[in-house]
């Protein structure tokens, strides 16, 4: 396609879209420095809501839970999903299609339906085995919606992989585990990595499924924000959003810069 310079109209259009995307976030961050209690009326500059945020045990432990769940869910989902993708590949066409379709169900079904259905399952099992919903049920639910993304990311890599290199590794004296570890996992690693990254971000972002499977006592950041928004809103929420936004921005910019450097290095070779 021809890469000619964009016209003025195009540039204005993109600028308007960017404004639409960033004005709400900008206003929200601006209000986090408000010294008043109200999130709309500006009363002067203050950092007290940041102070309040770091002193809030509720929010800090919720943040800890969010990170813990995201790390565990993405790791476990990656193991389960990678193994599954390799196994599924060995089925014949028809059963493979059936398994893949069932695997995609959590992606296509609405979050709320999945949340509600898992809640039904866990409350039923809870009565049967005398347990209550909490950390474990939230973790299990997060794994549920993460695994399909891992399978979807690993499968294309697996299809492109030359099966002979595994046999070659065996012929050259690797045992099955070494061949698997050194050859197969190495070949699949970009797919595994992007599956894990997607899992992590989905787990961090989830509200609905956590809301239905958390039981009574367990809270993560999403469910705390959920409660705060329903009750009285204080600028602590703004301070929290501002910090999250800056963290995400930094991580994404760093990843982007790193990728570009890698591309440049690859181009030089």
């Amino acid at each position, binding site marked *: 396609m021809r*890469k000619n310079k964009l016209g003025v109209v195009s540039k204005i259009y993109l600028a308007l879209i960017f404004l639409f*995307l960033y004005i*709400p976030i900008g206003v929200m961050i601006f209000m986090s420095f408000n010294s008043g209690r109200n999130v709309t009326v500006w009363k002067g500059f203050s950092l007290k809501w940041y102070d309040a945020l770091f002193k809030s045990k509720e929010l800090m432990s919720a943040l800890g839970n969010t990170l813990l769940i995201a790390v565990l869910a993405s790791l476990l989902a990656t193991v389960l999903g990678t193994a599954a993708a390799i196994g599924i590949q060995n089925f014949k066409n028809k059963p493979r299609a059936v398994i893949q379709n069932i*695997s995609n169900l959590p992606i296509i079904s609405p979050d709320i339906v999945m949340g509600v259905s898992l809640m039904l399952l866990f409350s039923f099992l809870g009565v049967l085995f005398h347990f209550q919903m909490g950390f474990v049920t939230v973790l299990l639910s997060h794994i*549920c919606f993460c695994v399909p993304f891992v399978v979807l990311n690993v499968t294309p890599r697996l299809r492109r992989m030359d099966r002979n290199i595994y046999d070659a590794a065996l012929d050259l004296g690797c045992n099955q585990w070494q*061949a698997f570890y050194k050859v197969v996992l190495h070949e699949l690693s970009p797919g595994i990595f992007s599956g894990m990254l997607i899992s992590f971000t989905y787990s961090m972002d989830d*509200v609905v499924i956590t809301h239905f499977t958390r039981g009574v006592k367990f809270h993560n950041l999403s469910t705390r*924000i959920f409660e705060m928004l329903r009750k009285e809103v204080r600028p602590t929420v703004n301070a929290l959003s501002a910090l999250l936004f800056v963290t995400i921005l930094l991580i994404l910019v760093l990843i982007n810069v790193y990728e570009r450097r890698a591309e440049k290095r690859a181009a030089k070779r």
Partner: protein
Amino acid sequence: MKSKKLSIPYILWMLVFTMIPIVMIGLTAFRDKSGAFSPEPMMKAFGTEYRGVLLHSLWIALLSTAICLLLAYPVAYLLTRMKPSTQNTVQLIIMIPMWMNFLLRIYAWKILLQKDGALDMALSLLGIHGTYIGNTAAVVVGMVYEYLPFMVLPIFTVMSKIDGNLIEAAQDLGSNDFAVFRKVIFPLSIPGVISGITMVFVPSASTFLVAEHLGGIDDKMIGDVIDQIFLTDQNVGSALSMILMILILVFLIIMNLFGDEEAIA
């Protein structure tokens, strides 16, 4: 490596955490509170009380999807005409808000649109007064904000894969820019449009909390209703979930007839 064994844990997992929960929703939807078989929850779910909510949800989702498409299509097209490095940056700019928590994005709009909020203040200076929150338009704006990147990315992905030779051929054969767009780029971008529509419509039809925080009393959506009713009546809640699920499946099947499945993944 060549055995199916590695997939056994996941197959068992899907049985317990995907299949059984769906069956449970189905079973709960056809039972009354005592646990006996009864068509009553389904009858209730189809009754007038919820029909309006369901239609309103679909209407909001349709409107949001249409606006997303109108806004996103030019963005995707402009993206294809940029240098690769600019493409990356612009894509990043569009994606960053998506990485914020879903609730915080709604909250951001809530403070922006509130009475005496930033928008109200700015427009008051110009002498315009009005309420911007608590109506269907606010819900649609929130929805568009939540899901716009889901529309931009698939359309851009498909468009950027269009063979440049086709465009050159069209130009050589005397097409001007508009004709190239109408006869080559637009038809070839349809699969992206279809997966974009799917990725926006499905979550916006079933979402909850957006309407609760940005909409008025009449702007209840099916997701909000399912959330509330599950506290008191799991049977009707399951029946509503089943109806929602079936509607979404029907929608996906229709969309699949238009486009090929590959583009969605």
